[in-house]
């Protein structure tokens, strides 16, 4: 039996239950709401099809933010991880600060960043990168530090220089750690983009959701939410695919 069969069945069951509950207006009655604010999956799908151009335009804006922000976080995170790995002074100075920085509620900072950088893409990139940076850096650093000290000794007796040990032993050892950090980052990057867009922006799925909920256009809001999930899952799956291609020894 395929691994995805059971989850797919479960999901189909849940959507079907939702469809019945919504189309018979049982759900709206239960919640004490007007039926038109409780759309059924079929209505959401219809809305998605009718608004396909608008949704695609905004999805593209969000996707671009996610990819750029995630890319910046990965690049800076890798450089940071290697620097902290190579210098004990840097590690001792930065590591506790890095962990402590995770207590800063970035959601609350998002509107401030909008004040500073405006309604364009810049504050979104900052927010996404700030949120994604941590899992990438910490996981990669853990990976670099997990190297078997015996392997390092073996390389030293084979005339390896410090950069050669880094490149031939430590980096490959850290790769699977990096990928698990990147997968976590990919999943939260989409949430970060949403926060950033809700704080202020001219386009994007987050902006669309904010506008639609304000005018009780719930079907289209759900359609935008579904697209956000699709972006996150696609990014996660892409990373898993790349990892399987690159980390062939596990």
């Amino acid at each position, binding site marked *: 039996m395929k691994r995805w069969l059971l989850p797919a069945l479960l999901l189909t069951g849940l959507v079907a239950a939702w469809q019945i509950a919504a189309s018979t207006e049982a759900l709206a009655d239960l919640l004490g709401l007007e039926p038109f604010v409780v759309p059924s999956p079929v209505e959401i799908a219809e809305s998605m099809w009718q608004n396909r151009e608008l949704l695609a335009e905004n999805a593209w804006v969000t996707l671009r933010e996610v990819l750029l922000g995630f890319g910046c976080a990965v690049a800076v995170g890798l450089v940071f991880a290697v620097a902290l790995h190579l210098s004990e002074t840097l590690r001792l100075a930065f590591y506790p600060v890095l962990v402590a920085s995770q207590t800063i509620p970035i959601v609350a900072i998002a509107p401030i960043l909008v004040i500073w950088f405006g309604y364009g893409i810049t504050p979104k990139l900052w927010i996404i990168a700030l949120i994604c940076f941590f899992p990438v850096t910490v996981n990669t650093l853990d990976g670099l530090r997990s190297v078997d000290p015996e*392997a390092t*000794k073996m390389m030293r*007796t084979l005339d*390896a*220089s410090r950069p050669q040990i880094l490149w*031939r032993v430590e980096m490959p050892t850290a790769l699977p750690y990096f990928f698990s950090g990147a997968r976590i980052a990919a999943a939260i990057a989409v949430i970060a983009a949403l926060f950033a867009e809700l704080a202020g922006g001219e386009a994007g799925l987050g902006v669309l959701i904010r506008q639609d909920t304000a005018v009780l256009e719930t079907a289209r809001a759900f359609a935008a939410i579904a697209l956000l999930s699709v972006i996150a899952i696609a990014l996660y799956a892409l990373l898993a695919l790349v990892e399987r291609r690159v980390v062939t020894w596990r």
Partner: protein
Amino acid sequence: MPAKAKEFAAAATLPSPGDSAGIGASIRGLTHSYGELATIDNLDLEVPAHGVLGLVGPSGCGKSTLLELISGLQVPAKGNIALGESTSAAARLARCAFMPQRDLLLPWLTAIDNAALALRNRGVRRAQARRQAGLLFERFGLAGFERAKPAELSGGMRQRVAFLRTLMAGKPVMALDEPFASLDAITRGEMQEWLARALEADPRTVVLVTHDVEEALYLCDRVAVLSARPARIVDELSAPSPRAPDRDEAITDPEFVAARERALHALREGTL
């Protein structure tokens, strides 16, 4: 010389340690401790050029530490270690290759790239390094497995790749830390025979650490029996010579059996 050994001798591509006469190793008054724990106590050892010295001792007696000291991975607390003229740790590191207990093959590299690591570290281009290592694969019974990942190799093959990697470093001294401890009895016997032939074809100065008295007496010229921590020499004996090329024949020789009994006796004494 058995046929296999002739094959080895014919392999002119073996990385030469430069000085074909080899260099000796000399240890004087070596004392070392691990924190508060004294691991080595005033040790003197001498290995002539191209000599093979076996170190036998109980588990945890500091044998592995001794190899790391010899190969320059650690600096001793007291005493001198010289490999030829080299006495500093850095200079020893340049003249001694170390084969660790576990094969430590890098799982992301193919067998041939693992074997060629030392060449790559020295800046040899990949194609050239592979060509050089590849010439030895057949002689080492590894032909056809050049592109195999370590996970696809048997224990004996992995150990041979690890030994080839040590040999390719082209250093005059080799420190071998229980190279066959992880193998089953039959493979271990085969590998011992194989190593004896490899060293016959390509002599090096070797310090071999093992807990197996038979292995030491079969592979080495001289065997030092070490005591429990802190390690000192209980007995030092010469291996029977000349040895029969066949391992089964060699280890049942009366002279060999007598030497083994003497070494085992010393080992028991040193553990008390």
